[in-house]
């Protein structure tokens, strides 16, 4: 099912304030995560990473208590932890970064509806499959007879999630059937766009397909699966012994029916699973106990308003992260920007060239890429905590832009004033601090304020390296309640509440100076 594209997939469910505060602590000290069930005592933890934006049935914030996560992956993690005699601790991580984060050692196990595939076996320790899914084609009801398989969709647009088995299938079908794959970053918009006619079919695993059809009246799933895939857990390559112990626990749970109980509870049990389990248990189908569990009743239905009230504290704490991160990053950007600008105006040629190269490289490459390099690329050399990497990424990126503002402001101060200052006997340093700098600062203030507002919004990019800030928290919230309307309005309101006073303050200072 879902896997990485460059942006985070919109598939986590909402985490509430307590979760936020706890994850905040986790980012500061990434070797710690928080207990799923509390009361860690002296037991060792099993840290497992997942993306709560994926939502039910994988991992989502409990609608009744958003500080807890629920989902079949949560239960599989608990089962594995119990088997190991450990306490499960959930670490919220963007879906696209799960593989890199487990390699980095942010947690022991990644478990979030992760698809099995040869590329993963090459780089990671992969558990045995614990669930078999089918790739299902979803179409509009009126196209039920027309679009039965990929061959029927010649010349048409078919949606899926980027970097999934389904995406690979569509890429292959592109040359074979001349279909146009449309890759999404989340599993909600493919189905809503199908309903809107922007695409003609969606190919995704059955868990997502069933959820998509449930949420969008007018869509149906074709019966005939186009492929079969498996969900697995991921561990770092050197964790093979731990992976082997997990495999034994999974096999035992397949044998005694504990996995069946979990999947029945989430209404995901079907005939494919006993066959998979039998194969894994060496064909000893008689080892598989027959259990009967009634499906979980539908969770308590809450109005969007009631959910908003529950999510509001988590949005506030995410806004706090946005503010703190933006202010610290801007402070770093201003200090570095001043140093770079001064160097570019005053320093000798080699340093000037080096600083010019820095500015051009930073301005010429995406901030997103810089964040990835800082957090994952450098992990082997220096394992920065996510928040520190976010702060450095934003601060060093904006320093390049700030330095250009300061440089042009410094150069805008009339040469004649500098000559006049020289003939009065001031040193170059005094001229910078008494004459040039103060005037340049006044010229730079308005563009600096603009940049701070831009940085406030760009800070949302740091969610790719697992920092949950305001926008990310909002998308989690939105994915969980299935609507962007209320969360979007709340989020926009919070950003405005942060940026408008800034713009106002800058205008006031400028007016004051103009009066001078």
């Amino acid at each position, binding site marked *: 099912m879902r896997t990485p594209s460059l942006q985070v997939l919109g598939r986590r469910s909402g985490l509430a304030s307590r979760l936020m505060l706890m994850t905040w602590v986790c980012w500061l000290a990434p070797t710690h995560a928080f207990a799923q069930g509390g009361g860690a005592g002296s037991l060792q933890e099993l840290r497992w990473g997942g993306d709560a934006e994926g939502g039910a049935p994988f991992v989502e914030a409990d609608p009744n208590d958003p500080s807890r996560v629920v989902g079949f992956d949560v239960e599989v993690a608990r089962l594995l932890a119990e088997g190991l005699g450990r306490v499960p601790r959930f670490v919220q991580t963007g879906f696209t970064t799960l593989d890199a984060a487990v390699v980095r050692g942010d947690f022991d196990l990644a478990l979030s509806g992760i698809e099995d595939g040869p590329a993963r076996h090459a780089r990671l320790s992969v558990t045995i499959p614990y669930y078999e899914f089918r790739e299902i084609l979803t179409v509009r009801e009126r196209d039920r007879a027309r679009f039965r398989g990929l061959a029927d969709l010649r010349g048409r647009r078919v949606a899926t999630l980027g970097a999934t088995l389904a995406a690979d299938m569509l890429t292959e079908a592109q040359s074979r059937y001349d279909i146009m794959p449309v890759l999404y970053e989340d599993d909600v918009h493919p189905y809503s766009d199908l309903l809107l006619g922007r695409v003609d079919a969606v190919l995704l695993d059955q868990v997502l397909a069933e959820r998509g059809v449930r949420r969008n009246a007018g869509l149906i799933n074709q019966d005939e699966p186009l492929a079969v895939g498996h969900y697995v857990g991921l561990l770092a390559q050197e964790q093979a012994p731990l992976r082997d112990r997990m495999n034994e626990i999974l096999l035992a749970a397949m044998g005694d029916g504990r996995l069946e109980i979990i999947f029945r509870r989430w209404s995901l049990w079907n005939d494919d699973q006993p066959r998979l389990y039998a194969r894994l248990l060496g064909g000893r189908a008689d080892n598989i106990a027959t259990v009967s569990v009634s499906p979980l009743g539908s969770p308590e239905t809450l109005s969007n308003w009631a959910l908003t009230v529950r999510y509001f504290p988590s949005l506030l704490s995410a806004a706090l992260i946005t503010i703190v991160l933006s202010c610290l990053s801007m402070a770093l950007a201003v200090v570095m920007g001043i140093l770079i600008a001064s160097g570019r105006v005053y320093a000798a040629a080699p340093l000037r060239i080096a600083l010019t190269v820095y500015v051009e490289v930073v301005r010429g490459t995406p901030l997103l890429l810089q964040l990835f390099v800082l957090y994952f690329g450098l992990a082997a050399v220096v394992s920065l905590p996510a928040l520190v990497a976010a702060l450095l990424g934003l601060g060093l990126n904006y320093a390049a832009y700030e330095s250009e503002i300061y440089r042009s402001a410094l150069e805008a101060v009339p040469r004649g004033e500098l*000559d006049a*200052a020289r*003939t*009065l*006997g*001031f040193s170059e340093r*005094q001229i910078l601090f008494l004459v040039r700098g103060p005037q340049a600062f*006044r010229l730079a203030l308005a563009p600096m304020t603009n940049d701070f507002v831009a940085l406030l919004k760009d800070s949302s990019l740091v969610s790719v390296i697992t920092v949950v800030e305001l926008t990310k928290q909002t998308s989690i919230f939105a994915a969980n309640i299935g609507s962007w309307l209320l969360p979007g309005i709340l989020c926009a309101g919070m950003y405005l509440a942060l940026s408008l006073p800034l713009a106002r303050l800058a205008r006031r200072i400028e007016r004051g100076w103009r009066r001078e």
Partner: protein
Amino acid sequence: MTGLTFSADRGILVALMGPSGSGKTTVLRAMAGLEPIDAGTIEIDGIVLTHGGLPRGARRRELHRRVGMVFQFHHLFAHMDALRNVTLALVHVLHQAQSEAESRARQLLNALGVGARAHAFPHELSGGEAQRVAIARALAMEPPLLLMDEPTASLDPARRSELAATLRALASQGRTIVIATHDTDFARACADRVLVLDGGRIVREGPPDGSTGKVF
């Protein structure tokens, strides 16, 4: 600019005259260490400037202890009022106490007729007022050599004669002054010697009183 040679003793006021583009401003800027020279030397009170770049660091500051300059455009510091424009170098270069610097600055501003404008910012001053503040700023540092580029450009006739008298008084105190000007009446009123430049050379030289009959 070639073949230009002149000297000025203490207490002498030299006027550089000549059409626009004749090199008057360039001569002043070269003397102030703001314009590099390709050949020859400029010696000011023991400090020698030659080709090979502008003086830097301590050497430049040493030069500027001896040379003050008033530019054709006032070049006042735009973010400071008139008083602070005058006191800034007194406080930060000569290390005078703020109160001492202010009283000296007010005295000079009053003498130049802009005492009432002490708290006005440069953009609030007329051209003539700004020019006088700039003169006060240069005079406050009491440089042995004062260079002035078109000091009368923004002054009315009454102010011109006042400035001529001020400059005469400064010269009589032993200060050397070199002005670049188009204003023959002003040169006649205050200069000891006039050099007429054209095309980067001195074409005529002499006292301004007409005794040589050639200068103007």
